[in-house]
């Protein structure tokens, strides 16, 4: 079964949970409301065999409301196809549901996304810094983080 068949079968089945679908570069893109996330991903995993969670990241759109877009990628090792799930998160409370109950590997990837964009994943109890360090203020991949702002851990030497 090739990708087009899989997507043709998925789209009507998932239509109630999705408000926009598209196929971009051979990837099925599902734009959803944040509230439908867990229900949708559970069906992707159980009914359509998307057994591999590839990544979660975010996009910062300064000036847009809601400001953040959170993006997940999944792969089906059975059908050899990928799906992208997108939703949005507001600037005031950038929170979405965590996928740790469905995919154990979400634990670390959500920590990274929390480091870089400050997205809160409800249900992930361990959002400590993973790539950054304790004491780092702000989220460096947000567009409003100043490019040259350094937060050194070691005090710089003074000129001799």
């Amino acid at each position, binding site marked *: 079964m090739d990708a087009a068949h899989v997507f043709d079968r998925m789209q009507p089945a998932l239509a109630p949970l999705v408000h926009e679908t598209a196929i971009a570069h051979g990837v099925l893109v599902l734009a959803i409301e944040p509230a439908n996330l867990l229900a949708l991903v559970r069906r992707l995993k159980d009914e359509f065999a998307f057994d591999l969670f590839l990544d979660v990241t975010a996009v910062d759109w300064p000036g847009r409301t809601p400001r953040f877009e959170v993006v997940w990628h999944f792969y089906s090792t059975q059908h050899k196809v990928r799906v992208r799930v997108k939703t949005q998160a507001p600037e005031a409370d950038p929170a979405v549901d965590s996928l740790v109950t469905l995919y154990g590997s979400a634990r670390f990837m959500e920590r990274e996304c929390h480091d870089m964009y400050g997205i809160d994943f409800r249900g992930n109890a361990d959002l400590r810094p993973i790539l*950054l*360090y304790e004491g780092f203020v702000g989220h*460096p991949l947000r567009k409003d*983080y100043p*490019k*040259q*702002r*350094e*937060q*050194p*851990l*070691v005090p*710089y*030497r003074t000129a001799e």
Partner: protein
Amino acid sequence: MKMDRRTIPIAPDKSGASARERSGAFEFISTKKDELIGWARKFSLFPYPFVTACCAMEFMAVSGTPYDTDRFGAALPRFSPRQSDLLMVVGTITHKQAPILLKVWEQMCEPKWVLAFGACATSGGFYQNYAALPGIDRIIPVDVYVPGCPPRPEMVIDGIMQLQDKIARQRHPILTKDF
């Protein structure tokens, strides 16, 4: 048969020479303490490779047989900072890694020298962001900078030779700060 020593230096006839001449040993040489110690130290560099990034490939190339840093007495990496006297910082240092680099440098015994290997260790290279330390000289003193992304092995060898010249010209206090 009496042979001419100058024409046949390999097997000189020493039958008529004194015992001291026959042994061929130096009785004494005249030099300066700093020059003597500097000469010894510059040919016995024990590098500690603090290798973090892609420059490591070039470090391996320069350590390998074709370029052979052994010629400069700088071949044997010591993987303990306490046994080494040349800290080679090879690659990008991030702010998160800076405390580790400082700790390694502080563990090295005097005399010690630091070589910044590559553009990132020298100045942060093309990284100018939240993560990268803009040059290791922000936290530790550096003796020789080798630029390049990555540097050619010839540049590294040139850096080692410049460091050797620097060591040869340095003061080498061994007992007190004056001697």
